């Protein structure tokens, strides 16, 4: 009561009003410390500064990619449940990147689009998120929020896309032109007046930008992609490719078991002994398979 009296003298308010206000504030802070936290990743993504490759690229965003989210359950009272939805931001970001990187991009959502653009599409790209890990300061005691992602990109010929009886699109992995992983890392330090959610969002945006930078700088260097680009160049002389994507001697494609995968439901499997980059967070992973 004495403290409230002193405070009431300073702020010229009734002690009970101040006490109730402070009580409410503390309760709010306590409640905010435990519940679940949700982030819908949002950001402004710049167009890449590139000479577009003279190609028409088909893009299929599988539903697991376009609606990607991960959920991590709290492991103790001091932690919170986390639900991070990256799907919308993924589609927005990769649309912007592909739009600046290729002369024309065709979004393939149905068989009609496949039929209509079959003649002009040079290849169909199908991205997938293989794994996502994150850390927040409550996990590590380090004042940094981190997100690490591993993508699996597949490039297939338009002829490898088929229609199922139910209308869904599928593709035969054996007919792929290339498959390659892309890793991405984003971090952001804690900042005054920045909530956990804002910091995780920012780390996710940084990771997306990093994924784009990694994709652009390694695309032409993938052996199978180089073979594909060379084949297109020899077919459509004189072909022009950007100097930012150096061509390399390609290795022959590896043999894979014949199977049919649904493009819309495609998932990637994770090998337990898979290597991670040195700067990847080590705790709290949520693979695409765990996404709810």
């Amino acid at each position, binding site marked *: 009561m004495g403290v409230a009296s*002193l405070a009431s003298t300073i702020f010229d308010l009734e002690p009970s009003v101040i006490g*109730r206000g402070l009580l409410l504030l503390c309760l709010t802070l306590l409640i905010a410390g435990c519940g679940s936290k949700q982030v819908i990743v949002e950001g402004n993504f710049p167009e890449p500064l590139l000479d577009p490759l003279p190609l028409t690229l088909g893009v299929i965003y599988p539903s697991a990619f376009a609606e990607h989210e991960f959920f991590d359950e709290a492991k103790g009272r001091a932690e919170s449940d986390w639900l991070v939805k990256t799907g919308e931001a993924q589609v927005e970001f990769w649309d912007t990147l592909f739009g600046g990187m290729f002369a024309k991009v065709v979004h393939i959502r149905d068989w009609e689009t496949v039929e209509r653009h079959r003649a002009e599409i040079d290849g169909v790209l199908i991205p997938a998120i293989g794994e996502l890990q994150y850390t927040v300061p409550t996990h590590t005691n380090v004042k940094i929020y981190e997100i690490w992602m591993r993508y699996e990109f597949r490039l297939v010929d338009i002829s490898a896309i088929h229609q199922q009886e139910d209308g869904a699109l599928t593709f035969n992995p054996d007919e792929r032109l290339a498959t390659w992983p892309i890793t991405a890392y984003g971090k952001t330090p804690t900042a005054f007046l920045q909530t956990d959610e804002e910091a995780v969002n920012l780390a996710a945006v940084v990771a997306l930008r990093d994924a784009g930078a990694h994709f652009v700088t390694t695309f032409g260097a993938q052996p199978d992609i180089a073979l594909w680009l060379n084949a297109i160049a020899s077919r459509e002389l004189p072909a022009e490719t950007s100097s930012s994507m150096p061509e390399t001697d390609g290795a022959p494609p590896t043999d894979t078991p014949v199977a049919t995968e649904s493009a819309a439901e495609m998932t990637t499997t994770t090998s337990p002994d898979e290597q991670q980059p040195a700067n990847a967070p080590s705790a709290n992973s949520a693979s695409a398979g765990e996404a709810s």
Partner: protein
Amino acid sequence: MKRLRIVDLAPRWWGLVVIALLLGGCVNATVDEMTYNEPVAGIGESSVVILGRRHAPDYDTEFDFIECIGDHIHRGDPSIDVINEIAFINQFYPWFEPRTAPMQPQTIHRLLQLPPVAERFAEMQLEYMIWIDGNTIDTESTGSMSCGIGPGVAGCFGFGTWGTESEYEATIWDFTDKVEVGRVSAVASGQSYMPAVVVPIPIIAPVQGTACDSLGDQLLEYLSAHH
């Protein structure tokens, strides 16, 4: 009755507050400079961009520190056109991301082989690219503070203090010749205090601000014809 007891305690606390006020705000700063080929007549209508290094695993150079340096330079000589860092990075995406940013001035040549990049640089009339590497951290902290709440009662009592250190190095690249033309470093440290009698009163040492002013002054001296 309780109110009187608080008043009785007050002189001890106010003594701490006075000491803290006397000590607070004391920041030590050291600046080292090594520069070549100073533009004696200034940089004219050319522009300067100041960028933070963010490739280290354990820290990022703060965006607001880069903005502070840019503002300091522009305030000191309004004729110097300092390009906004975030706008620059977005305009040149993906070539100045942590993964792709050039680490040596010579590697700018490779970037300029990309026609759209070369065109954009030409439009900007960029004369100097300044990279800032470093950060500000809180060091040792001591003291204790207790906060309590009850029906109609709430407040904090105690005293805390912590140190802050800033360490930054600016590397100046001459964009025309693609060479490094100087390095300026600033190290600042200070002690902050937080006495609390019902309400905590933070007395923050402006360590990062001092580092910004120190580094900004040296860069301004290098770039401006009027300093």
